[in-house]
């Protein structure tokens, strides 16, 4: 009786999510993946070409460049945002005025639209009237001045600070709520044992929120592999593909060069690569856990 009731509950409970998600996410994705096997301009007749779009992707230097840039973004997010957010979460756990101000300030970029963020950072990096070069001049570091966004060798790295800056608030919030959830008894116990400071952080707090960190890593990887807006607004993937990302390349192929099939093949590749990366990261963390 009880088992039957819970079975019914499981089915009715899962149904709405499964229906909405399947219909509006999964069906379109399969549909789009299907176009990946066609040579189609997005209009009119489509010609079935088998795997030739994928073969072209493998030979396409722009695709590999975009993938490399995406990997840079993933690494920067995972090893930049997460440690920074963790550190800030630990530091800002009290609720005095200064800490509350700092928390809000750090979160604020999250609520601004990417258009605004892109605009302001373009002016920070502006080669003639930019704040950054102005500051370097003022500090007597004129030789450090660079063409931040237009030098193909460094442009992708110049995009990392705005990227980290705009999302660190999100992870800060996630970590803070996780830290808040560590039951008071554990803190008390630590106090009695005389564990505090760095040791407490490393040996008690971090393991307690390990799950959350894993969640954040997955969010980070999936987020940075899909990232589109910031780059599209700040550099359009240029100069000469130097900051091209998989998503911007896909968008260009689909909507400006009339190569819908090719664009679909790229987006399917993005998903495959993300799955591999996330799978690997899960496997890595779980393996370590087993070893411990």
């Amino acid at each position, binding site marked *: 009786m009880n088992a039957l009731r819970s079975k019914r509950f499981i089915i009715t409970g899962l149904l709405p999510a499964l229906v909405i998600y399947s219909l509006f996410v999964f069906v379109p994705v399969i549909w789009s993946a299907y176009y990946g096997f066609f*040579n189609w301009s997005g*209009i009119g007749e489509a010609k079935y070409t088998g795997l030739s779009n994928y073969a072209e992707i493998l030979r396409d230097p722009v695709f590999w460049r975009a993938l490399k840039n995406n990997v840079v973004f993933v690494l920067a997010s995972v090893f930049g945002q997460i440690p920074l957010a963790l550190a800030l979460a630990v530091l800002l756990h009290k609720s005095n005025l200064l800490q509350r101000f700092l928390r809000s300030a750090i979160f604020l970029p999250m609520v601004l639209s990417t258009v605004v963020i892109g605009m302001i950072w373009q002016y920070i990096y502006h*080669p*003639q009237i930019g704040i950054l070069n102005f500051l370097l001049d003022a500090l007597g570091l004129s030789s450090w001045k660079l063409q931040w966004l237009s030098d193909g060798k460094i*442009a992708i790295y110049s995009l990392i600070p705005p990227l980290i800056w705009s999302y660190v608030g999100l992870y800060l919030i996630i970590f803070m709520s996780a830290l808040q959830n560590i039951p008071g008894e554990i803190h008390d116990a630590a106090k009695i044992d005389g564990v505090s400071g760095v040791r407490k952080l490393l040996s008690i707090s971090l393991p307690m929120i390990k799950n959350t960190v894993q969640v954040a890593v997955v969010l980070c990887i999936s987020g940075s592999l899909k990232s589109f807006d910031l780059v599209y607004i700040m550099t359009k993937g240029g*100069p000469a593909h130097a900051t091209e990302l998989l998503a911007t390349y896909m968008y260009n192929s*689909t*909507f400006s060069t009339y190569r819908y099939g090719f664009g679909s093949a790229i987006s399917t590749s993005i998903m495959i690569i993300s799955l591999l990366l996330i799978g690997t990261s899960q496997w890595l963390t779980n393996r370590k856990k087993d070893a411990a």
Partner: protein
Amino acid sequence: MKKWISILCSAAMLALLLAGCGGGNEASGSGENGGEKVSISIWHNWTGQDAKAVAMRKIIEDFRAEHPEIEVVDEGLPTDGLKTRLRTVAAADEMPDLFVMWPDAMTKEFVKGDLLQPINEELDANPDWKNNFIPNALDGYTVDGKIYSVPMNLAPSSFIYYNDALFKKYNVKVPETWEELGTAIQTFNDNGVIPIALGNKANWVAQSTFFSTVGDRITGTDWFLKAVEQDGAKFTDPEFVEALTTFQKLGELKAFQDGFNSLDETQMMQLYFQGNAAMVVNGGWALANLVNNAPPEVLDNTHITIVPTIAGGKGAPDTTAGVVGTGLGVSKKLTGARKEAAMKLFYAMAGPDGQKATLDSSTLVSYNIELDKSKAHPLFVELYDLIQRVKIVPVYDSKLGSATVEVVNNGLQELLMGGKAEDIARKIQDAQAAAVAAN
């Protein structure tokens, strides 16, 4: 804690309730129940507060007042948004009745997808209208001998806007030859003035506003058209490599300010408006922006000329790259009374009156009408007079396949960053060869 949940829940209930209402009165198959008011839809990009957008919206308003029997449902979107939306609805075969459409690539794709209907009948019925377009104006809208639209403006893409005060101050001659351009660049650089402001982040800018003309000066138009068809000319030919090299040398001379590949068109004009740059190379469309936003000390000293001649080049000297402007696409699905209504609006916008209204809003047209010089801004009069003297040669992105255009645009960015001209020429050639082979 429970309070906020209940607040949120009630807000959502309200939202969903309203959403339900919104969904109810959905107007799909717009007014085909004969005899009733005829409804037509038009999508456009006249959303701004600039003179042209205002003028075009006014035509629609006037049309509504004049034709109470026709309901015009118009929707304005920013240019990029309009293009993305059109691509999407084209894939689903759901075109609006009329929409702003670009010549060449877009027109061809839409015709290939069987989304448009030709307007030959209407044009032939009104020869005064048809014959008054400037030569070749309808080419970009003609596919297999059928005409699908007419241009509502003209977009010469390559003028030098220069700040005469700076030229006088440093005693520089406004360049008419490539050598004089070199001298001018040198002098301005020596005096800490940016010779030419360039904002090539949206990578079509260098191609459309500058390189297309340089290319034409060196290779000549015939060569270019042959290379486009891949018929007796290739982009790896020495003349094209020379065009690339010439353009690259301009970059090496520091003709453009640092970091030009990361600035957008707005920031490029900003450098010019601030008086930091002596010249800016831009299309005829930049004039409205200049007149509206440049401070008087810059605006009053601004004049317009064309890209200097290049000795030894095969192209004609008095030319500028350009393309006819946007037209209106007419959906294939329009028939009967709705088609009639749509064509009335089409004529109001692109016919003689519409062309005149466009010209009066400081926008060049591909149509023969006199400008009322007493009413126009002096700089626009200057532009208008200049365009009467020069011939328009095809801008690269109007003739090349859209995938090749991407390669050219990125190649020019690479070129100006020190890429090798031969390699870039090869990539362009490969892309265009593939595009031609695919057709």
